[in-house]
């Protein structure tokens, strides 16, 4: 059952991700990102990372994807770029493919050759407690720094958006 679900989600992720890359229509790319993000969230659930999965949906679909689509909709109206033409040249396509294939091969070699130390698997009831404790104890400084960074970004965005 779980294997079946894994292959279903993997198929959704790979299929929609290839639409994102290969589609000539930017809107198709933007909208199929929805299925990519959703499939990745499903994979997280299968790995018992429930909190990460929901954060994935919340942040990537509810936030970033909406902003991407919003941006595409608005910029095409302003700059007049035709969103239906795939203007990427052959040169970029070939170079990108070569680089991607090289990275993929080296990653596969890395994964198969390194001897991974596997911890004994304990199915967690919920991950949110341990995430919370880790944030407030061991990783307090990185957590606070990230919070300050977000605050700076917020203040900066307000400053830019404010009319003089």
């Amino acid at each position: 059952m779980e294997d079946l679900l894994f292959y279903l989600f993997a198929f959704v992720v790979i299929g929609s991700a290839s639409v994102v890359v290969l589609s000539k229509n930017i809107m198709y790319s933007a909208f199929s990102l929805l299925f990519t993000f959703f499939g990745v969230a499903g994979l997280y659930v299968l790995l018992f990372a429930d909190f990460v999965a929901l954060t994935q949906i919340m942040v990537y679909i509810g936030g970033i994807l909406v902003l991407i689509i919003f941006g595409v909709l608005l910029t095409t109206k302003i700059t007049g770029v035709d969103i239906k033409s795939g203007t990427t040249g052959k040169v970029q396509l070939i170079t990108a493919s070569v680089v991607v294939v090289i990275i993929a091969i080296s990653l596969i070699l890395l994964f198969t050759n390194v001897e991974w130390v596997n911890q004994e698997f304990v199915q967690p009831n919920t991950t949110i407690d341990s995430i919370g404790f880790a944030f407030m104890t061991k990783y307090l400084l990185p957590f606070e720094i990230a919070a300050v960074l977000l605050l700076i970004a917020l203040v900066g965005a307000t400053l830019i958006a404010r009319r003089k």
Partner: protein
Amino acid sequence: MEEANFVFNMIGENWIAFAIISLLPMIFLLAYALIAILGELKISAFIQERLGPMRTGPWGIIQPVAEVVKLLQKEDITPDSANKPLFNLAPFIMFAASYAGFAVIPFSSYFVPSGINLGLFFLLAVGSLGIIGLLMGGWASNNKYSLLGGLRAVAQIVSYEIPAAMVILTIAVMAGSLDLQEIIRQQSGWFWNWFVFGGSGGWIKIIFLPFSFIMCIIYIIASLAETNRTPFDIPEGESELVAGYHTEYSGMKFAMFFFAEYANMFIVSAIITIIFFGGWNSPFGDFMGGPIWGVFWFVSKAFVFVFLQIWLRWTLPRLRVDQLMYVSWKVLLPFSFVCFLALSLLVMLK
């Protein structure tokens, strides 16, 4: 309470049980939609001093059935210049996103489709999924009114998610849990244990009553905006945008949008019921308690808020776009910050 799902208790944990569990909310939703449509017609008639539908059945109570049959047999039009794949996909995404919320709604202490520990967070996350369908429909219709409706909807929903998230954060602090069943169990007993009255605890909570009331009102306002209901229906304001993002839709696909809106109305009402009004708990201690009466209490409390939404829709005028942003960022957000601090103080004092 080891296994909080009566279907699993009856026929065991197999795929038939999973199928039944995932279909039960759908059956409820179909019945609820008929009642809500009738409610919308009759309440609007009452508010406007009309009779409303009177011909179909006694006092017109079969009218929703007639409306559904009418919608089913209408021609399914796809505009020539619309983007067909996205145009046809949008209503389904919209409805799937609404129905996803039902996965964690606890109808009773013995029935919740999926009793995950992160129920509240899940509702917040899938609540933001629907906008994608809305934007998709708005863009694919190839109609300037639809596109404007889609853009307005995004600006509105993204803004109002923030006060709503602050309220949910406060509830998480007060309950110390994101599990909806656990949140409801903490509000058991008499109605003064509900989170709208500051939760269970000593008399010190009376000082904090205004804050919890304001929190509840903030969530009700924000949830109206998230379901695109008047006074926040600027994405589909008919006097400005024809019908907004669903201008070009007809027949079954329009019905899907319509159905998704009603499902969303119930979901936000259910959230208000769960986080502020004690979910399936009886308001009077053990009077009419237990799992079966729990369904009754939960559904009737949720229906009160569905009624409130219909009532507000037919009495209030629509906000302007700038007023909408003003309400979210300059009124609801600062108030929710203050209330969050105050209620956190209450949790520390208890």
